């Protein structure tokens, strides 16, 4: 095992390892952009990528990475600290448990599973917000969840394509 682990660390390999966290960070920044969207509701791209990477590359999106990314999200969004730091690792954990039990992938099944997970996460975010004394209404969270679901195939394609390219690059 130790011999197998001792691969050559090429730049491509480093890029491959940092890719999942990098995409999540990037999507967090995109989410924080002051885009003049109606309703101001951006798809929760970060959550989407966390779910995607936990499914495609479980070793590169461990639970603790979810926690750190969530912590960064909380600080970036200026919300109550700990909400996404709790939801991201939970999502990673749930995906991992599900992956152990289900064989094979198809877009429809993955999409449905992600839909369930995203909606639950949005509800949890809303609940935690009210638990911490915010009076945020439920509707924006649900709208954001719905927009996120629509963005799923795009994000999945993007994630898979980037991964393929980087795998080629790494040899």
């Amino acid at each position, binding site marked *: 095992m130790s011999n197998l682990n001792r691969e050559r660390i090429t730049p491509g390999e480093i890029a491959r390892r940092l890719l999942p966290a990098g995409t999540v960070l990037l999507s967090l920044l995109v989410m924080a*952009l002051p885009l003049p969207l109606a309703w*101001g509701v*951006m798809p929760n791209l970060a959550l989407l990528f966390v779910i995607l990477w936990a499914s495609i590359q479980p070793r590169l999106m461990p639970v603790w990475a979810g*926690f750190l990314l969530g912590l960064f999200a909380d600080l*970036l969004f200026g919300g109550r600290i*700990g909400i996404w730091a709790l939801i991201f690792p939970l999502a*990673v954990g749930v995906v991992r448990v599900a992956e152990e039990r289900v064989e094979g992938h198809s877009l429809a099944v993955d999409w449905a599973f992600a839909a369930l997970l995203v909606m639950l996460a949005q509800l949890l975010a809303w609940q935690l917000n009210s638990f911490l004394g*915010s009076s945020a209404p439920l509707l924006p969270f649900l709208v954001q969840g719905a927009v996120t679901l629509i963005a799923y195939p795009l994000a999945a394609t993007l994630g898979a394509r980037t991964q393929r390219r980087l795998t080629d690059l790494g040899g």
Partner: protein
Amino acid sequence: MSRLPPPNRLRPARRTSFARRDSNLALLGALFAGVVIAFALLMLLLQRVNPDLGTRMRGATADALSPIISVAMAPVEGVRRLGALIGDHMNVVDKNRELAADLKAAQRRAAETERLAAELDRMEALLALRRPERRLVASAVASAVSAEAGQRQAILSAGLSDGVKPRMPVIASGGLAGRVTDVGQGASRMMLLTDADSRIPVKVLRTGWTGLAVGTGGTLLDFQFDIASGSDKIRVGDRLVTSGDGGLFPPGIPVAVIIDAEANPPRARPLANPTGLGTVMIEAPWLPPPSFVAAPPAAPEADKVVPAAVPGTAPAAATPAAKPPAAQTSTPPAAGATTPPAASTPPAQPPRPAPAR
């Protein structure tokens, strides 16, 4: 077959080291995941108990985030400016005509306002009214951060070193923008008035009704108010300005304009565009929180004591308090005449024997 010695205390059976190590790693991983999640939960609970904790942490990160956000924002801001520029050029003639008409109307109104202002000054001087003054603390550039559902915030380019403190009102060129929530050394974070947690005391300029402009997390505000009269109604186009209630926001700052009066509660559009605030002013809270001092009690006022001593029978002044007030009704208007004895009696009687009963 027996190449390996039998396992003993120093050399335990090394069965399938790959599998064992894998299962150990998996177990460790699960444990670590549990610890991480528990830590996140702990953070949430701590904030529930002590909300200041989160504020302090976020204040510390505002400084670090400010440059990231301003860099990320540059292209968006550029495109927005370009769009505005093109739009301006397209309808410059129409705009000019419109403005000329507006200017004429405004000039008429300004003349009237000047007269009223002069009169108001005179009245206030007569009343010796103390009007608190607005105080500019800093000017800053705001860049909106639209991230989480329900939250509307912006980063300001001024912080503690400029004198910015939490709670301070932020005013943009169009109208009220919100308030400062977290402060870092050179940058701070503000809550926009569209944030779902934002409540701003406002009044309707036309009717004088007071209420709250409540953020919804979307682009519009809810105007919550108590109906003050049955004959009037909120109309589309009614302007909401700050009422000064609560002492945080100075009164009279434009906040929003009603765009849907039929909805319950009525919906209003903020006058300061939350995604394009640009340069803003940060002011000190309008009324500083009062710090009460122990002042000596005021001396009893002569004219308040007068009705108590009304009894027309001046010789009986020693026991006026015991007398039933009904006896005094015979000479009610003679208050002025009995003032001298009243001045001598106060120490002997309770200050208010309730003569009106």
